[in-house]
């Protein structure tokens, strides 16, 4: 039997992999009758949208003072690459 706990897991899973049609139908029926699961579904859809929409902003962390390679790391990497025989 589909309870809300199972439904919440399946709603998340449906974002990653197609569910069998019979399961989709059962989920749809549950969502028609359960406002709480419908609210959970809306939340994870909004979450997905904002995370994807904020991807560029999330790639930078303003909390880190200097998001730059240290001079030592820069030099080490250059030397390592050069030693690999790169032209």
């Amino acid at each position: 039997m589909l309870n809300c706990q199972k439904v919440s897991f399946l709603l998340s899973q449906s974002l990653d992999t197609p569910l069998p049609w019979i399961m989709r139908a059962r989920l749809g029926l549950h969502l028609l009758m359960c406002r709480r699961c419908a609210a959970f579904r809306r939340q994870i859809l909004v979450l997905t949208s904002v995370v994807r929409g904020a991807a560029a902003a999330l790639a930078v962390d303003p909390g880190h003072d200097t998001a730059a390679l240290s001079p030592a790391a820069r030099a080490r990497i250059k030397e390592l690459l050069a030693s690999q025989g790169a032209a």
Partner: protein
Amino acid sequence: MKPKTDAWVENHGDALFAYALSRVSDRSVAEDLVQETFLGALQVRDSFEERSSERTWLTGILKHKILDYYRRSHRGIAEKTEHTDDPDTLFDKAGRWRNSPENWGETPEDLLGRREFIDALRACIRALPDNQRAAFLAREIDGFSGEDICKKLAVTATNLWVMLYRARDRLRRCLTENWFAKLSPGA
């Protein structure tokens, strides 16, 4: 004569480092990932077809290196049960919600226009357990397929779905507590 790879480091090193640091939060790990990225790029540079920019190509390699790092550093990262991290808090014994998930009432467009929300989202993502964060960001931002993530992290599909479910559940609760609840304290 300066090696051409010097230009790679000069042009892209800092950007790759910033990206890696946003994922692993440890400077020395981030530096290692940048180094591995350039070394990996060196090995496959003949396959760079210039359909994308050099930066995009290198960032793609880095995304793979980040997942490799999580697989190496988190043995046994698979999560097996289908429950959330707090099943007893969220659901009663019959599996029904104890409390309703809130109606957030804002559209993604509204939210994305606010820097404070992005900061709250970033903090919530950072608060995820490492394995859940790695899987979630690989899926939602880096665009890896579920199958690719399973291979890179050496987990089964079910393990991955559980990790993503828990990540989404934690994030929505974190945002509810740290953003949406604070907007309407009297509601």
